[in-house]
């Protein structure tokens, strides 16, 4: 969409600077909030950006809206989590924007195939949650174990391949999305309350449990279970010792051999199918997968557990090969991404937007109350694709943002003993 007031005589750079200045100012001007591009839209209109990411946020609706608002054509490719890491490392020329998770970033950043972003060009940096800055959700919160996003968010300069311990002007990735994960259950097929991670290995659910086969995430769910059982004490679940890895895998291998698991899943759709078909009644799951099962009319609960959540965050990173007009367009796209419309779309699927306040403008008060504040819904809750998800009166599983994100026990991570862990995980899958 063109901004009719943009004078053609100004150069793109000038306008970008102006745009940044607006964002850096204490008060955010209304122009910024609407998400209109501040550079001359004609220039970026014909730009095509190739983005890949996991199925969770590679939604065609985003590409359509970006085309409407910015004129940019987005080519989206959905991959599984491991494949996203592969793509960054082995095919750096095949993408412009990588929509990846922070623990993946930790793994792929040293390859030098991505370039950091200049924070002064990000209009909504001030709105980004503290989790992605100093790591603190609220000034008093403690930082959970694992690869917390802020530990891999900053780098020292445009060419740096390492991470900076403190905040700098260079962002490795712009955060867009995050959530607290727990077990998904089919309450109708279980018929009793579930409140601990230990239930995943409860023999009662023999042949009806599942865990995800993505090593870095699966090992965390496994650790949450073993810790809750009291079988293994961890120094840091996000950075286990070889001994801790061995003990964890031994418990899970034993359960696997006893027939505890029906299947392992690798992609979002697989987890939905397992749950919806009733093959599995308790499993590791992601929030929108729950949403999807529910919109099929089946009861499915994202069960809060007393031991807390495993959390993850994702963002948009730039390919090292981006430059010139495409780079400008990518900044424009990312600023638009954080301006609220996408955030609203993600929030209404059960994720959190990294800049929640901008998303609020694109949600009804009732939706905001339900998804973010944990209040009972006043009207039916409709998902972004028009399906009814919750009847009036429903309350979100786990409650408000602070209750959920405040109870995160560890982040998805890459460990020092990653190579060893991967080998053990493979043995577990093959066992």
């Amino acid at each position: 969409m063109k901004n009719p007031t943009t004078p053609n005589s100004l150069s793109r750079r000038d306008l970008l600077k102006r745009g940044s200045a607006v964002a850096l100012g204490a008060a955010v001007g209304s122009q910024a909030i609407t998400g209109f591009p501040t550079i001359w839209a004609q220039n970026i209109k014909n730009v095509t950006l190739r983005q890949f990411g996991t199925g969770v946020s590679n939604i065609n609706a985003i590409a359509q809206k970006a085309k409407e608002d910015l004129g940019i054509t987005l080519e989206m490719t959905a991959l599984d989590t491991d494949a996203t890491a592969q793509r960054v490392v082995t095919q750096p020329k095949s993408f412009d924007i990588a929509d990846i998770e922070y623990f993946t970033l930790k793994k792929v950043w040293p390859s030098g195939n991505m370039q950091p972003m200049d924070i002064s060009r990000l209009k909504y940096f001030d709105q980004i949650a503290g989790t992605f800055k100093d790591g603190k959700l609220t000034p008093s919160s403690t930082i959970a174990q694992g690869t917390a996003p802020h530990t891999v968010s900053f780098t020292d300069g445009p060419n740096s391949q390492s991470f900076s311990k403190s905040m700098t002007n260079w962002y490795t990735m712009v955060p867009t999305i995050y959530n607290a994960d727990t077990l998904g259950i089919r309450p109708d097929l279980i018929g009793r309350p579930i409140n601990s991670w230990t239930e995943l290995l409860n023999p009662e659910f023999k042949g009806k449990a599942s865990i995800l086969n993505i090593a870095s995430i699966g090992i965390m769910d496994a650790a949450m279970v073993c810790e809750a059982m009291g079988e293994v004490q961890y120094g840091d679940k996000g950075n286990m010792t070889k001994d801790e890895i061995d003990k964890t895998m031994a418990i899970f291998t034993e359960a696997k051999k006893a027939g505890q698991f029906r299947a392992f899943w690798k992609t979002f759709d697989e987890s939905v199918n397992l749950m919806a078909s009733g093959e599995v009644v308790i499993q590791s799951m992601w929030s929108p997968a729950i949403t999807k099962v529910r919109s099929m009319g089946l009861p499915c609960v994202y069960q809060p557990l007393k031991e807390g959540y495993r959390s993850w965050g994702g963002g948009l990173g730039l390919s090292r090969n981006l430059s010139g007009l495409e780079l400008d367009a990518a900044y424009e796209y990312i600023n638009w991404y954080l301006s609220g419309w996408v955030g609203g779309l993600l929030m209404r699927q059960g994720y959190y937007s990294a800049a929640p306040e901008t998303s609020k403008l694109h949600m009804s008060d009732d939706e905001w109350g339900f998804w973010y504040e944990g209040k009972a819904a006043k009207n039916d809750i409709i998902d972004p694709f028009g399906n009814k998800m919750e009847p009036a009166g429903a309350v979100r599983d786990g409650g408000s943002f602070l209750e959920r994100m405040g109870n995160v026990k560890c982040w998805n991570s890459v460990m020092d003993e990653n190579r060893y862990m991967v080998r053990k995980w493979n043995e577990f899958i093959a066992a």
Partner: protein
Amino acid sequence: MDRQSPLSTLLQISPISLILGFFLVLPIGTILIVSFWDYNDFSFFPDFVWTNYSDALGSNVTYKTYLNTFWYAGLTWFFTFLIGFTVAYFLAFHIHTTRWQIVLFLICTIPFWTSNIIRMISWIPFLGRNGVFNTMLQSIGLIDEPLEFLLFSDFSIVLAFVHLYALFMVVPIFNSMMRIDRSLIEAAIDGGANGWQMLTNVVIPLCKPGIAIGSIFVVTLVMGDYITVRLMGGGQRASVGVMMWNEISLLLYPAAAAHAVVLLAVVLIMVSLMMRVVDLKKEL
């Protein structure tokens, strides 16, 4: 015929050499080289280390996985052979007009009009805990509890393999059978052979090349497969292919390359053993 000039010989062999060079020798050479490289979490780099091979050959998991894969290959071979031989026999000896042979043969190929992934996935709702088959058995009162072994098990994996690859057995065996001189069979019957003797002394020996070709197809396809095992095994059964695919998805390319080289060697040995049983060059 005159001796050809060296140039024309060179020109004549160059297309096949180029094709094999680019699409066979070059990729396999690359895999062989990479299998000696070293790697870390996010990249792999030139080196000359044996760790990929020692990791692969020093792990119990590798041997168990190979055993598992042989098990799948053996079962699949057995069932595809039974089905393939029977179908081919019926087509070759019981259908007497060429037109009907062609029609029925084409019917055998109908499943191949869709992709093999689709053919595989369509089993899942059929065999599931609340799937069509279990529901049917329960409604006619044959069972009380759904049969769990039907899906995400060795059973479902072998079933899918047999479904996918039976035709690879039918075609070469049918081809061999069509080439059997019918007077040989008449002679056997005139000589007093009963049906079984005719089958074991005449038909099977003369079908050996077809059986060997079909077996090579089926065994190599199963040995290298990963997607069938992954989808039908619910991600918790292992085969050599799945093991390599796991490594590739975790960016452990050199480790996967080492496994690929080992698998290639194993499959070559298996094929050469099969060639030993049947001298294909002579028979063809």
